[in-house]
């Protein structure tokens, strides 16, 4: 086998081209443009092909990173795509949204001295190449097993499980509450970070494998778990309903008009096209000064989305710790800065002030960092007497969310923790306390990541397969 031309970290990490901040900050087109084949091969050639690849351990689904990277270096892009798809059903998505710096790339050995291999960017390149080449996945589904599986929720966990189970020969029906499949990938993560046609392509791919997607179908309401398992003859059910019930701050003024949860704000824009109002019917106000509260991916997405609204003049992120503690992906933070989002660190809102029922300002308090807390991050402590008012006509609260209550409300024999997350009785196969019922993704873990939800979907698919093939 031919070896890649040059190895080691003499070649610098290839940075993928991006749209210029000035151009992109008023557009919903994707910011990052991705590698060309030549750039991808050059970047891939930096991999040392470690015998015990640390990178793989950092990846929640253990993508066979060295193999696919070698295939890229050799120009076998479609083979590389096949390698990734063995463990990762949505590489075009994860290549874009995984927090790689905390996962695969964090452990890459060439990152010790220099910059780690751009595994995410390569994964994205391979998936995009495959999609643009119109390549079929070549996956031959196993012969029909005669088993029917219901999947509740068409987010990354549900979609992944559906794909695997269909490939194993089961009849799979996904029930989705909204009028659109995709979960957070569709209503939460904005278009400029994850173009919609990618999600749609993946959904089409599932349908080609014979998966049925039933939209507008709220399980727990139109059907109970028991009805699915008895009347409808499903042999197993996978609950992948994601996070729900957004957290608010519990400070005065949160019910003023102009205060949104990040979910509402993003759903209005991403799912309901509010930014195209009145072409589309769902409105969003012409806000000018928008304050986003929080420091995670959701906050960054809300802020960068706000910036793209035609009326926006100023968008700030108010975060109570410092930039080092921000949990959002580094790339997102950099992009937001470049586009002109103002970062206000070590400040926390204590009240939202209004006028005639509308938001007028956020009263903030300055913070300082104290001793590290249980999470190892330095605890922010309020500085007495430091309150000041930040003018704003909209406040977006991005503090994450709790659990979606609908299914647990309806199925009393399903065990949940005090916060409403579904408890597993066997985590290795994602099985719940209720026979035949499996669960995974954010509804089990609380808000986490796309790839961990997909990992849960994979594990569940294996567990469900064993379960239904064992029972008769």
């Amino acid at each position, binding site marked *: 086998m031919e070896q890649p031309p040059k190895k080691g970290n003499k070649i610098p990490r290839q940075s993928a081209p991006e749209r210029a901040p000035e151009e992109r900050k008023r557009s919903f087109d994707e910011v990052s443009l991705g590698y060309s084949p030549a750039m991808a091969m050059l970047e891939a050639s930096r991999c040392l092909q470690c015998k015990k690849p640390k990178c793989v351990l950092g990846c929640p689904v253990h993508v066979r990173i060295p193999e696919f990277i070698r295939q890229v270096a050799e120009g076998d892009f479609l083979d590389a795509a096949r390698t990734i798809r063995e463990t990762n059903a949505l590489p075009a998505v994860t290549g874009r949204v995984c927090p790689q710096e905390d996962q695969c790339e964090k452990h890459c050995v060439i990152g010790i001295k220099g910059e780690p291999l751009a595994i995410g960017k390569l994964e994205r390149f391979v998936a995009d190449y495959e999609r643009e080449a119109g390549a079929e996945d070549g996956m031959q589904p196993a012969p029909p097993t005669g088993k029917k599986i219901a999947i509740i929720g068409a987010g990354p966990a549900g979609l992944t499980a559906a794909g695997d189970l269909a490939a194993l020969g089961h009849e799979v029906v996904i029930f989705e509450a909204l*009028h*659109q499949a995709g979960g957070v990938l569709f209503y939460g993560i904005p278009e400029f970070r994850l173009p919609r046609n990618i999600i749609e392509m993946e959904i089409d791919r599932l349908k080609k494998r014979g998966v049925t997607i039933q939209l507008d179908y709220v399980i727990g*309401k139109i059907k109970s778990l028991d009805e699915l398992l008895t009347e409808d003859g499903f042999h197993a059910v996978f609950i992948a309903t994601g996070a729900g019930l957004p957290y608010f701050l519990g400070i005065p003024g949160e019910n003023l008009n102009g205060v949104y949860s990040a979910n509402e704000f993003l759903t209005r824009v991403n799912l309901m096209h509010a930014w*195209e109002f009145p072409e589309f019917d769902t409105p969003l106000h012409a806000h000018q000064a928008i304050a986003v509260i929080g420091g995670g991916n959701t906050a960054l997405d809300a802020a960068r989305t706000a910036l793209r609204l035609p009326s926006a003049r100023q968008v700030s992120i108010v975060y109570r710790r410092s930039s080092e503690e921000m949990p959002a992906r580094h790339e997102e933070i950099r992009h937001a800065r470049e586009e002109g989002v103002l970062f206000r660190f070590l400040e926390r809102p204590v009240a939202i002030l209004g006028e005639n029922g509308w938001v007028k300002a956020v009263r903030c308090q300055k913070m300082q960092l104290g001793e590290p807390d249980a999470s190892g991050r330095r605890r922010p402590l309020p500085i007495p007497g430091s309150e000041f008012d930040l003018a704003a006509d909209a406040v977006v609260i991005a503090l994450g969310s709790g659990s979606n209550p609908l299914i647990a409300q309806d199925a009393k024999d399903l065990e949940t923790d005090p916060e409403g997350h579904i408890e597993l009785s066997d985590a290795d196969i994602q099985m719940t306390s209720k026979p035949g019922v499996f669960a995974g993704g954010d509804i089990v873990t609380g808000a986490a990541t796309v790839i961990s939800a997909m990992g849960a979907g994979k594990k569940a698919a294996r567990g469900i397969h064993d379960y239904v093939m064992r029972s008769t």
Partner: protein
Amino acid sequence: MARRVKPPRGRSTRSGTALPETSLVFNVVAKDERTPGVFRFVIQAPQIARKARPGQFVILRLNEHGERIPLTIAHHDEVRGTLTLFVQAVGKTSIEMSRLKSGQGILDIAGPLGRPTEIERFGTVVLVGGGFGIAALWPIARELTAAGNRTIALLGARSKNLLLLQEEIQAASSEVRVATNDGSAGTRGLVTDLLEQVIREESPVHRVIAIGPVVMMKAVCELTRASSIPTRVSLNPIMIDGTGMCGACRVMVDGKMRFACVDGPEFDGHLVDFPGLENRLRGYLPEERKSREQFTRVEECRLEEATPPRS
């Protein structure tokens, strides 16, 4: 910046590839105007009809560009597989819906959403309805009466011709009293006047359920608070998903934040923060006016020029 108008995206899951056989189809099987501006729709939705309970609602979206709007299920017929909805044409979406004809389809209907009304044998229950709230009371009246309650329905409207479902409510409850602002039917005055009267005459009243405009529900709660009659109100905040994801439907109840789509829509009226709800319902007035104006303008042009409708 010039507004970008893009062709509709989304919903690839239903365009392009053939519809999977199980795809729900929501056809309007009957429609009429019951009182000026209030339309009755009978819609084919067998799966929802099978599960619907009094007090629940659906969220529908008319078309690809549509908004998701909540509407109460006024009646469900398991045998025919239909839902009956009453829609007051107040804004863009409800006006557009009011122009649908029998045989036309609605793109999306999700439901039945919300927690059903508690149906028990309480004793004497007074049902207070105004506007399209009367439609919501209809199934509640029927079931409470069937459960052995003495049900007294108090219906209010500005004028006789605006009174919805009087006969149906009559058939569904033990007694009906009507109040109109102009005295054209029943007594002249407000439903709250009737309620005061009933509370005086009937003792005890075990429960009051009030559904209608916020001002009406608020006034009812003020009245019943004095005599500590348990009072349920059905709230109608702005909603988007209806599954507890977005938080748009939040209301303060007993000082705690609750989500009307999953915790409600009914709450203990004595604990609801009505001023907060009223304020949030005013939230989209300017935009809604714009949307409605544009819609009616387009409609007028269309009538004049007979241009093909927007698909």
